[in-house]
């Protein structure tokens, strides 16, 4: 392979056809920039938010689940053949009887579309529901006001939220929306509507009549879901049955140990029964992380789609370039260029486009990510979950971006390079 000859042709061609290559760069730069934004945001959220969201959970709390992979918001139905041990009421009772266990309670996720709507300081607000149900008895020691947190056929649905949510509201949401700061006391008794069977993102539930119930915030609990609402277990059971048609089970069982020494033995006992056991801190953050992973994967998929379009565009432009240079290619063939060298010439042109695209894409991506960071952080203020940086660039993001860009550029060059190499020199010389 005569690299010097091929490189000279590539250099000359890039110089001569700047406009062509600039046009082919647009897609590549967009694709790389989107990848940088998505990955840096995901990484930043993981490191700066998720890690800190669950830092207050006690080390002595275990999370017991059946799925080794908990996808949080995207809980996937486990295929029948994989279904093994179940998180049943009996298991819960058995756990409570174990030595070293202080308390145990099951968490049942509300697993059908639902949304919260209401008027908040004169503003109409709405969000999709993330909710769970817990047994009121399980939290009665910690939660003062237990008489209010129970199932009732009449009156508003009692709701608990986590202290973390209040903190998040005060440090970020209130500041972003110019709402007043709130205390536990002022929030108690706050009422809002919960639309069951329909959500903004999830659409309509599989069955059941869409209806609205009123909820009332009755208090705060360490056992409440970190970001979302927690209702008495009975509601979750009833609603899940009504809107999914199936009897729902616990997604997780939380076990509080009396002391760290009790963890090992109980963890082993549960693992021997086929359950997945982790500290609540690890388990909960893993669920959020997995949700984030899926969102990131979808966004990266979008970036891949952009890159595929860019590769297609590049292929089209390279084809045009080859057509335009047919006579030249014929000429190089007559003076001794091999098919491989002609093919290499086109591939190198694509490769250089990919490299330039990677550099420009990285610059644009960082710029966009920083703008997003600035916009969100400045609005959110000093959130306790250290929003110093919403975006974080791990070291591997740069080589990945370069590889990503060059890979798709080369993908786009396959057909034109093949076409150029297979050109009949005699026909090509005719132009």
């Amino acid at each position, binding site marked *: 392979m*005569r690299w010097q*000859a091929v490189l000279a042709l590539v250099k000359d061609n890039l110089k001569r056809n700047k406009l062509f290559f600039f046009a082919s760069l647009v897609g590549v730069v967009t694709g790389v920039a989107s990848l940088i934004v998505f990955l840096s945001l995901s990484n930043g959220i993981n490191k700066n938010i998720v890690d800190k969201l669950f830092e207050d959970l006690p080390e002595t709390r275990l999370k017991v689940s059946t799925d080794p992979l908990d996808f949080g918001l995207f809980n996937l139905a486990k295929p029948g053949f994989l279904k093994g041990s179940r998180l049943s009421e009996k298991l819960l009772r058995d756990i409570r009887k174990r030595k070293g266990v202080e308390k145990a309670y099951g968490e049942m996720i509300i697993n059908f579309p639902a949304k919260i709507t209401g008027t908040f300081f004169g503003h109409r607000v709405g969000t999709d529901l993330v909710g769970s149900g817990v047994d009121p008895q399980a939290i009665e020691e910690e939660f003062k006001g237990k008489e209010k947190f129970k199932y009732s056929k009449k009156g508003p649905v009692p709701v608990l939220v986590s202290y973390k949510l209040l903190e998040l509201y005060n440090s970020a949401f209130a500041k972003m929306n110019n709402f007043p700061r709130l205390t536990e006391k002022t929030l108690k008794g706050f009422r809002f509507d919960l639309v069951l069977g329909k959500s903004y993102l999830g659409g309509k539930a599989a069955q059941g009549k869409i209806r609205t119930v009123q909820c009332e915030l009755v208090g705060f609990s360490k056992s409440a879901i970190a970001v979302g609402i927690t209702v008495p277990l009975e509601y979750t059971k009833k609603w899940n049955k009504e809107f999914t048609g199936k009897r729902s089970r616990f997604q997780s069982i939380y076990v509080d140990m009396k002391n760290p020494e009790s963890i090992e033995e109980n963890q082993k006992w549960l693992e021997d029964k086929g359950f997945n056991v982790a500290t609540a801190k690890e388990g909960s953050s893993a669920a959020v992380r997995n949700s984030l992973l899926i969102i990131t994967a979808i966004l990266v998929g979008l970036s891949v789609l952009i890159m595929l379009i860019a590769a297609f565009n590049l292929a089209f432009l390279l084809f045009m370039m080859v057509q335009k240079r047919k006579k*030249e290619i014929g000429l190089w*063939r*007559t*003076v*001794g260029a091999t098919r491989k*060298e002609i093919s290499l010439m086109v591939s190198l042109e694509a490769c250089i486009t990919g490299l330039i695209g990677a550099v420009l894409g990285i610059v644009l991506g960082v710029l966009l990510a920083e703008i997003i960071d600035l916009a969100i952080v400045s609005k959110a203020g000093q959130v306790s979950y250290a929003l110093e940086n919403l975006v974080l660039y791990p070291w591997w993001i740069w080589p990945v971006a370069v590889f990503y860009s060059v890979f798709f550029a080369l993908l786009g060059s396959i057909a034109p390079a093949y076409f150029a190499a297979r050109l009949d020199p*005699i026909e090509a010389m005719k132009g």
Partner: protein
Amino acid sequence: MIKIEKLNKKYHTVNGIKHILQDITLAVKAGECLAIIGRSGCGKSTLMNLIGGLDRDFTGSIRVSGKYLEKLSDEQISKMRGGKVGFVFQTPSFLQHLNCFTNLQYAARFSSSKVSDVDIERLFCKVGLAEYLKSFPDELSGGQLQRLALARAMVGDPELLLCDEPTGNLDAETGEEVINLLAQLKEEGKTILLVTHDEQLAMLADKVCHIDNNKLVEARS
């Protein structure tokens, strides 16, 4: 230098198969000059392209410099073109945005032999274009361009020159300049294969062959 045996070449056309060359047998010794004449479309250029390895769709045997073309890979044939064979076409083609010297420099990079800038400058002197090193192809006349094409064909000092109507687009006076150059190269011992209509150019050849009815007939030796 060139030995062809039972060469057959056909084309697939909409009207079926068209035989263009049939049972061609030819031998050209090193240092010999052969002219192939014949009416348009008789297969003269096809024969030249086959000998130069630009066209590889044939049956029979073509041996150039002791190598059977039908047995060589694309890479081997390309390298042979870059070292042992030089082409001159009726209409020379150059990269218009590059000056004459750079045009030859690019070709030299694909040569199998090592060609220095001094070697290229010598070639410019040889074809009488020493003053046009930095000129661009569109600043040269037709005759000068054909001489430049001859210089490019000579890059790497090939043993064999394949010339397809090298004076076809030139007037008598400029055509003569090219003929003189080819005569000079013949004197230097180059093997030259000329495809031509030009009687004067054909006079240069040691041997003249005629293609008639797809067959090669020796007309004069």
